[in-house]
Structures are given as structure tokens and as C-alpha cells.
């Protein structure tokens, strides 16, 4: 691999890569605002300037500038090398680049910072970017001086609604055009643009349009400052109080890598952010996915239910014992759910095996909208996972047909979701026990419901449409009396009179190794920030 030298450190790069990207991959940050690894490089913020030493036997390009001389009491002309934007300048083999070691670069960074903050309102106490703002970070790293301009800054429109999801504050914007480029290049809907020049410049929405579509939240996420905020998150929390869990979005079969932010003091889910994984979602997530963090509390099954009445889990388990006492264990039907983790599904699959039942069906949410950017038509996060686990499982329609025909009388199912709303065929069953995190047609038809924890309340594994197995970490504490699904399945097993072979997450994970599910993906990230 070719290499170049950055401040004397040798950095490898792929041919064609920019200096900033290669440095980033090698763990060296060159400060930047307009550069984003997933977008084109306009090189308009000038924060990433570096000094590139000329090749041997070539002369450097020098510029004549004037500098204030304190002793002389006058300006004098000096020469300085022409700096280059590292975000646009391709790395070449053997090149020597100076960043931290060049006094010109250090002066340029401080100068760019001061320039960007000339008219900036420094609203930090009310700005939702505070705590993760590039202006704050770089001020501390590269400037640390007050600005010398004492005029009142230019005031521009604040709190402009760009659509149903995004609010724009022109005063805070640093005109990096990341949001504009995102809409044009990734979302393929060039609805944002700029108008005016200089310090009157601002981002606008195309006349007669709103910022809308399936990828509006990403504009906020790529904005390096607090100029764009989402109506969903703004004014809700300060990021320094939040804890994050690395999770996998449950919105569809793409399985976008996400960071889930929650407030550990109140156990409150607050937002989703995309986590970079070039092989799954690159740097992006869709709006529906970003908002699906709300499912941690919305539409949940917080308590056990028997015939629609809330009861204690023990009471519900007694009811299962009673209802399933009359049936031959081998004839109980088991329904795996593509919306639950591999651990939960595996526990149920094991239970079916221990009972000697061959009646295994699958369920999951119905298909929906899809596009060719990220969104998958399959709205289940683990379809590939259960297909690998039980390749010859029968479909949900087969379950309805068998129930109508009287072949199935007792069902133990995972997950409330079903591909169809009409599950009346299941309502007449003698026993329908559902272990579910979220309500759905199945929980409504069930005689006994057990409250499973949602994906963010227990560590779990999911296999996405590409067959990649990904781990989702535990974040918030379970809602109500919810417990991990595999634990509940173990309790059900005990009440059915079988001895479960798993009691801990470790046991379940050990069983997972023996199945045909693909091995876990090494987490692969290259920070976008």
C-alpha cells in the first residue's frame, strides 16, 4: 500500500483517497466542517488546510502577504506557502504533509475558527448541539482567543421550519453545505440550496417545497453545528447526560447500525443516531428508523395478561400450565418471530425440540415501503436469522389454515406482530400463549401474554437481509415487569413440564454456535465525525 507522511508519521492510503480520509482511517483527525466521508468534498470551510511540502527539486508555491510587525509598528511583506485543503487533495505516494508541525497551518486554523465565529451567535446554552459541536471543540483546540471584531454580529432568521421534522437557524450555520449535498447526493432530492453571498448567506428550501421524504433527519445529523435541529429531539436533553448503546435498528431488514441514546437517570429513550458501517448503512439511517427509538415504550406489553386482564407473571404461567395440561406436548405449535432476537427465537426453537413438536411456523410484520437507498420492504429485523434457524418452518398463512382445519389447537408464539391483521382463526384456539415485546394481532388474540423485553432492554443478535449477524447491546432497563424473551420461554418450559437446557444468556449463546446461523460480523466502522 502506498504511504505518505503526515507530520512525520507514515500513513497508508488507497489510491485516490484524500489526505483527510486516509489520516482519519489511521486515527489522525484533521479538523474539518464541510468534509464528510460519505459526501463529495466542496472544500469550502477551509478548516482542513495543510501544508504540502514540494517534491524534491521543485519549488513551493509561495504567496506574498503582509503581516503586522510589532517592533516596526507597521506592516511588512512576507512570503507564506499556499496551503491546501486536505479534504480535496488526493494523497500521493511519498508525499510529505505538515499539519500540527506547520506554524502556517496552526495560524490558518485559528484564523478560520475566528472567521466562522465572527457572526456566530454563540447560543450554546440553548443550542442542542452543545456538547457535540465542532465549533466548541475546535475553538478549544485551535483558537482559544476571543474574537477581535466588536461590532454587533449580523442577525439572520432563527427557528425557520424547513418541514415537519427540521428547524433551521441561519445564524448558527457555517455554510458547509453538508445538508445540501446530503439531500442531493444521497437522498437524491435536491430540495435544499443556498442564497445570498458572504455573511448574508443562508440555506433555503426550494420554493414551494418542504424538506420532506425519508431522509430528512440525516441533514440534522450531518450538520456539524446546531444550525439544523430535529423537532423531535430539540430542547429535550443535553447530550452530556446521555448514555449510548450500540444497537441495530429494528425498522426493516437492512439492520442499520445505530447508536441509541438514553438518559440513564430517568431510563428514558431519547434518540437514534446512525453508527457508521460501510457494509450495511454507510453513514446513514432513514427517518422512520431514527424515530423507531420510540418503540422502546410505545406499543409495548409491559405486564402479563390473561384473557386481556393484567396479572402477575406467575399467575399467567399457572394459566399456561392449566390450558396446556390437556394437550400432547408433541402437538403444540410453535411460532418464531422475525421481530425478535435470535436468542429469543432459539429458546423457543429448543423448546419445540424438547417437546418433540414438528409444527414450527414463522410470523413477522407485513412488508411495506422500500427504496434503493436503505429502506427494505421486509419490515422485520431478523427474517434471515429465523430462516437460518428453522429452514423448513411453515408460513403464517399455513398456521391460520391449520388452525381453521383444527390441526392446531395449542400455540406458543413469539412476538405480537403478524403478516395479517385478520387472525380470527387463532381466536378459537384452546391455548394461545404469546411471549411478546410489542402488541400486535397475535397479542390481541392471545389467551395468555407474557411481557418480553424490547431489543434495547436485552442484548440480542439479529441477522439482516444480507445475512450479516449483528449484535445489539443492552441500553435502558426493561419496562414494567418485562424480561428477556428467552428467559420467559424457559419459564414456560418449566410450566409445560420440560426441563430447559438454558438458564443464562451464555447458555443460549452457546446453543447459537451449534446452529447454521452465520458467525457474527466484526464491527466495522470508520468514524464520520
Amino acid at each position: 500500500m502506498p504511504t505518505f507522511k503526515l507530520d512525520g508519521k507514515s500513513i497508508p492510503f488507497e489510491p485516490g483517497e484524500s489526505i483527510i480520509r486516509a489520516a482519519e482511517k489511521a486515527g489522525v483527525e484533521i479538523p474539518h466542517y464541510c468534509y464528510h466521508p460519505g459526501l463529495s468534498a466542496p472544500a469550502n470551510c477551509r478548516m482542513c488546510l495543510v501544508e504540502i511540502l514540494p517534491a524534491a527539486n521543485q519549488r513551493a508555491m509561495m504567496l506574498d502577504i503582509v503581516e503586522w510587525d510589532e517592533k516596526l509598528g507597521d506592516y511588512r511583506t512576507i512570503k507564506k506557502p499556499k496551503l491546501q485543503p486536505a479534504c480535496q487533495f488526493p494523497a500521493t505516494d511519498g508525499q510529505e504533509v505538515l499539519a500540527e508541525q506547520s506554524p502556517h497551518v496552526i495560524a490558518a486554523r485559528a484564523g478560520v475558527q475566528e472567521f466562522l465565529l465572527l457572526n456566530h451567535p454563540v447560543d450554546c446554552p440553548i443550542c442542542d448541539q452543545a456538547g457535540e459541536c465542532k465549533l466548541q471543540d475546535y475553538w478549544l483546540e485551535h483558537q482559544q482567543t476571543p474574537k477581535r471584531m466588536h461590532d454587533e454580529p449580523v442577525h439572520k432568521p432563527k427557528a425557520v421550519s424547513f418541514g415537519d421534522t427540521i428547524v433551521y437557524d441561519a445564524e448558527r450555520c457555517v455554510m458547509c453545505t453538508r445538508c445540501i449535498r446530503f439531500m442531493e447526493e444521497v437522498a437524491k432530492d435536491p430540495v435544499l440550496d443556498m442564497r445570498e453571498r458572504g455573511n448574508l448567506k443562508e440555506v433555503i428550501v426550494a420554493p414551494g417545497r418542504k424538506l420532506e421524504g425519508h431522509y430528512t433527519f440525516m441533514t440534522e445529523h450531518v450538520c456539524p453545528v446546531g444550525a439544523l435541529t430535529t423537532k423531535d429531539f430539540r430542547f429535550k436533553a443535553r447530550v452530556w447526560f446521555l448514555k449510548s448503546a450500540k444497537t441495530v435498528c429494528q425498522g426493516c431488514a437492512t439492520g442499520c447500525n445505530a447508536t441509541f441514546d438514553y438518559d440513564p437517570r430517568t431510563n428514558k429513550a431519547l434518540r437514534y443516531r446512525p453508527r457508521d458501517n460501510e457494509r450495511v448503512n454507510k453513514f446513514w439511517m432513514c427517518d422512520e428508523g431514527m424515530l423507531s427509538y420510540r418503540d422502546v415504550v410505545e406499543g409495548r406489553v409491559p405486564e402479563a395478561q390473561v384473557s386481556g386482564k393484567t396479572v402477575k407473571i406467575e399467575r399467567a404461567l399457572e394459566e399456561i400450565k392449566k390450558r396446556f395440561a390437556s394437550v400432547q406436548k408433541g402437538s403444540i405449535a410453535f411460532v418464531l418471530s422475525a421481530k425478535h432476537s435470535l436468542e429469543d427465537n432459539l429458546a423457543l426453537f429448543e423448546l419445540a425440540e424438547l417437546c418433540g413438536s414438528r409444527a414450527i411456523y414463522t410470523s413477522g410484520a407485513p412488508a411495506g415501503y422500500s427504496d434503493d437507498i436503505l429502506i427494505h420492504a421486509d419490515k422485520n429485523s431478523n427474517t434471515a436469522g429465523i430462516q437460518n434457524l428453522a429452514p423448513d418452518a411453515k408460513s403464517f398463512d399455513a398456521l391460520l389454515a391449520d388452525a381453521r382445519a383444527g390441526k392446531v389447537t395449542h400455540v406458543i408464539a413469539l412476538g405480537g406482530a403478524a403478516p395479517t391483521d385478520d387472525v380470527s382463526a387463532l381466536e378459537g384456539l384452546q391455548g394461545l400463549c404469546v411471549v411478546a415485546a410489542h402488541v400486535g394481532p397475535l397479542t390481541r388474540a392471545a389467551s395468555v401474554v407474557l411481557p418480553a423485553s424490547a431489543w434495547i432492554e436485552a442484548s440480542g443478535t439479529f441477522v439482516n437481509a444480507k445475512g450479516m449477524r449483528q449484535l445489539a447491546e443492552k441500553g435502558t432497563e426493561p419496562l414494567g415487569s418485562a424480561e428477556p424473551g428467552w428467559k420467559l420461554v424457559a419459564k414456560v418450559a418449566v410450566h409445560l413440564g420440560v426441563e430447559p437446557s438454558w438458564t443464562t444468556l451464555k447458555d443460549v449463546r452457546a446453543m447459537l454456535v451449534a446452529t447454521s446461523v452465520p458467525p457474527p460480523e466484526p464491527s466495522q466502522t470508520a468514524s464520520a465525525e
Partner: protein
Amino acid sequence: MAQAFPKKPASPPNAVTVAYTEKTPTVQSYLPEIFKGLGVSMSHFFRNTRDMLTGERPDPVTERLDDGITTIQYPEQKRPYPQRFRGVHRLTTRDDGSPRCVACLCCSTACPAQCIFIEAGEYPEGDKRRGYERFPVRFVIDELRCIFCGYCVEACPCDAIRMDTGIHPVPYDSRDQFIYAKSDLMGLAARDGSHETANPRHEPGDPTHPGIDREHGH
């Protein structure tokens, strides 16, 4: 190598050696010493009573710690506090009575006792600050947990929280009475009786605001 233990520090030069009381028969028989002690108490009692009757008693309220009674009848009598005394918190208001606090949570972040709880919210539809700023929907301070360090006052970028009420928490008899809600905190006034801050801020849109913007002339 043998460990060198730190030497006992020398007694300070102004130290007074306390004489060890000999175990004389009067000490060992207990009662005579009891009466001696009671005698000291009684002599203080009679002297103080006499001073009070003759009007010679020093004024403990002004903190004269000379001879005589130095206890005061709190809360009927109070010592004057220094100007910079940190008392119970208050939340300052703007001219229109709204809280100056923008719910930035700097105070609760700085608070070492973690006794400030703030829930931020957005101003309602129609308010001129809607969209620009947040405000505290709930602002609660547990005065019993507070260590009166004043960090919150230091941290506040808006001069919205102050400890210049001159009062310290009244001795309530239950814990929940020390939990001051936003309305309590906004209801408290500074020692001069004002609710506003001493450092008014020019708000965009105010006639005093020097800024030009789209709406106010370019």
C-alpha cells in the same frame, strides 16, 4: 532498610499545657466536684440574669463574642449576614415575568450535590420565544441536599439562578418541604425585594437591543 516513622510534630508555640487533674479524694468521691461544676453553671446563670436586668448584656446579634451570653433566640433574633452570604436559591425573571432560565442544565451539571432537577420544554405556540429558546417546565432544588457551594450560580450563563435571598432554609419538620419547585424559587425575592436580575440582558427585539436584523432595518 528500617522504615522511618514520621516524627511527632512539635507542639505549636502557643499551645497551653492542660494540667492533669490529680485523683484527689474529692475527685474520687465524685459529689464535691459535681457541686463545683454546678456552681460554675449557676454563677454564669446568675451573672447573665443580672446583666440582662441591668441592661449590661452584650448584644449577641451583632456577633460580639466578648464575655456574656453569645447565644441568640433564633429565629426571632437573627445575626446580620454578610453581603455575599449564600442563602436559599431564587430564579430571576425577565421584565415580563417569565423565567430567565433557558434550561441549559449548566447548573445541574455543575452541582456537586446533584440536587437540581430541570425538565426543559419549549414555549407554547404564539410565544415570541418559541423555537429560539427553551424554558424550564420543571425546576426543582432539594435544599436539604444542597451544600450551598454556589457552583450553580457561577455556572449559570444567564444569571437566572441566584442565592441572594438572604434566607436559609426554614427548619421544616418533613423532608418534602425542602424540595423547592419552580414556583417557589421564582416567588422568592432578592434581599432588596426584586425578582429581576441585576444584570438585565438585551433581548433581540427589545428597543434596547443594539442588533440589526431582518425585521429591524438593515
